[in-house]
């Protein structure tokens, strides 16, 4: 469902140019759990953002269900992103002044869905991640584990075909990290493709397939 074709990402120009991604080719199937493992500065986040339609590659293409992310304009790309992708980040990126429920509702704001339906759907997603008791809690008052689960619920609410997770367990304790990974696996089993980037080899091993990234180049591509 996701095709990354000869993607190169270069920051800066001339002598100061840094190549973050160098001719990446990658395919992710529907319902597949892919881990991209690599050390800091290897280009993991750049690759994830490029796959999610957030970072225009210097060259190459990213296709999602056959449609090219970067051959369309900004608004259309945003629409594609909202339709296909859900995001999880290392620092959760919740809006601190919104409640757990409101944070989860965010991707629905521009869909035209009625507020009541939005709330029902958000409550359902939060229930899925075990936070039905914390719906109206401001994000700033949640524990880090709860924050990541809210971020997970937010990534799920628009029922994406693909979840892109950037070091989702880096700030979590072992037990909470295990729970989050279990959730990801559950969604994988429901047909959602998961792409997880991490520097943690052990975490990478919990995926169906692991690819290793070093200095912007894929060095290994195979099943875990």
């Amino acid at each position, binding site marked *: 469902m996701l095709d990354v074709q000869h993607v190169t990402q270069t920051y800066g120009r001339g002598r100061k140019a840094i190549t973050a991604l160098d001719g990446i080719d990658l395919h992710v199937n529907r319902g597949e759990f892919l881990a991209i493992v690599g050390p800091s500065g290897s280009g993991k986040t750049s690759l994830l953002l490029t796959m999610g339609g957030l970072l225009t590659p210097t060259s190459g293409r990213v296709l999602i269900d056959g449609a090219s992310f970067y051959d369309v304009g900004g608004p259309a790309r945003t629409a594609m992103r909202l339709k296909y992708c859900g995001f999880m980040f290392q620092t959760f990126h919740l809006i*601190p002044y919104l409640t757990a429920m409101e944070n989860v509702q965010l991707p629905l704001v521009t869909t035209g869905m009625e507020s009541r339906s939005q709330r029902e759907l958000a409550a359902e997603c939060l229930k899925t991640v075990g936070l039905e008791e914390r719906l109206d809690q401001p994000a700033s008052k949640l524990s880090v584990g709860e924050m990541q689960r809210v971020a997970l619920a937010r990534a799920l609410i628009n029922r994406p075909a693909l979840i892109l997770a950037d070091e989702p367990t880096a700030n979590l304790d072992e037990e909470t990290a295990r729970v989050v990974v279990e959730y990801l696996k559950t969604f994988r089993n429901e047909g959602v493709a998961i792409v997880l980037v991490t520097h943690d080899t052990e975490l990478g091993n919990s995926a169906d397939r692991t690819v290793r990234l070093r200095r912007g180049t894929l060095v290994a591509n195979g099943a875990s």
Partner: protein
Amino acid sequence: MRIRHIAWKELWHRKLGALLILLGIVLCVALVVAIQRYSLASINEMRKVTLSMGKNLVILPGDASLDDYLADKFRDEADALPESDVKAVADYCITGKVTARHFLGSFQKKAKINGEPLVVSGIMVEIDPAAPAIVVKDAQQKLATDQVALGHHAAKRLGAEPGGRLDVTKGPLAGKTFEVQEVKPETGTVDDFKVFVNIDVAREAFGVKTKVVNVIEAVNCVCVGTNLKKLSKDIQNGLFKIDDNTYRAQVHHVYGIANARYQARKGLMGDVNWLSAAMGLFGVLLIGGYSVVNARERRREMGIVLAIALTPRHVAWLFLQKMLLLGLAGGVLGCVAGELLAQSLGAPILTALHPSMRAYVLGAVGWEVYAIAVGAAVVLTAIPSLIGVLVAATTDPADTLREL
């Protein structure tokens, strides 16, 4: 959830910043509203003073000059104007050429009343140019033959009081007793020395047999700012021209006084407009600065929402909505504060800055001023905040997310 909900929550989250900017808007609007209200009050005051002068358009018979009139040198019966000219002037003015409220015909003469040098002014009822067939029902100007109204100094000299009686023992009115209907407030003009009586009484006292007047005044003329010179000529040519060089009457205007008032008002309005513009500029800079700071402060947030939920257009609307809300609230609160300021401090400011002005009449609630102030607050909040809106809407989510 809608975008306005996010805007509202953000306002609450950053209460202090929002409150400070709101206070800034309120302060600007309040000062502008107070200044405008104060300025309108000053104009009211000037109008009131102009009105209290009684007239600035005077019609005198034959070739009488304004100097004659000001020196109380009135023409006698032979040179006077027929009473019908008063109505003719009012009829002429119904075409809208004159903004005088009423026209008053009178027959006036200097005389010693009980030994005091005063002016006897026999007055007709006033005629309203808007409806010249109808005489004005103003008690002051409907003196019965046994009633008298006295100018401020005339009353003092004659020892008369309102509601009392005036026995005239000397002068042309000798042997008559009048009820003092009114003592007029001091105006600083010759009217302070007048003894107002019914015109028939005055004409009889001076032995005038015909129905004539020797002065027609535009009472409460508020022609400030209009071209009085041209207006005077229009009336003179339209009604009193005999041939190219001869006129039955002279139409004079007390231009100097009206013009001085007009110039004072113009100067005041200039000051007021400068102050308002300065306040507006201060507000614009304040809001522009705040919106940019706010957009930068929320860069992380914007990066996130741009990545997961909103388009740049939505982000722009999110910011703009918040600023419009602040502008609206600031505008409304500023109007209230401005009105209170004008009510409480207007009079001391007026008398301190313009000692020549004697009365501070705020007038009716300035809905027009409020509407303009609120509208301007919203627009002037929206325009500078566009810089912040632009900063927010052009945030690159990838840049933000890579930094975090």
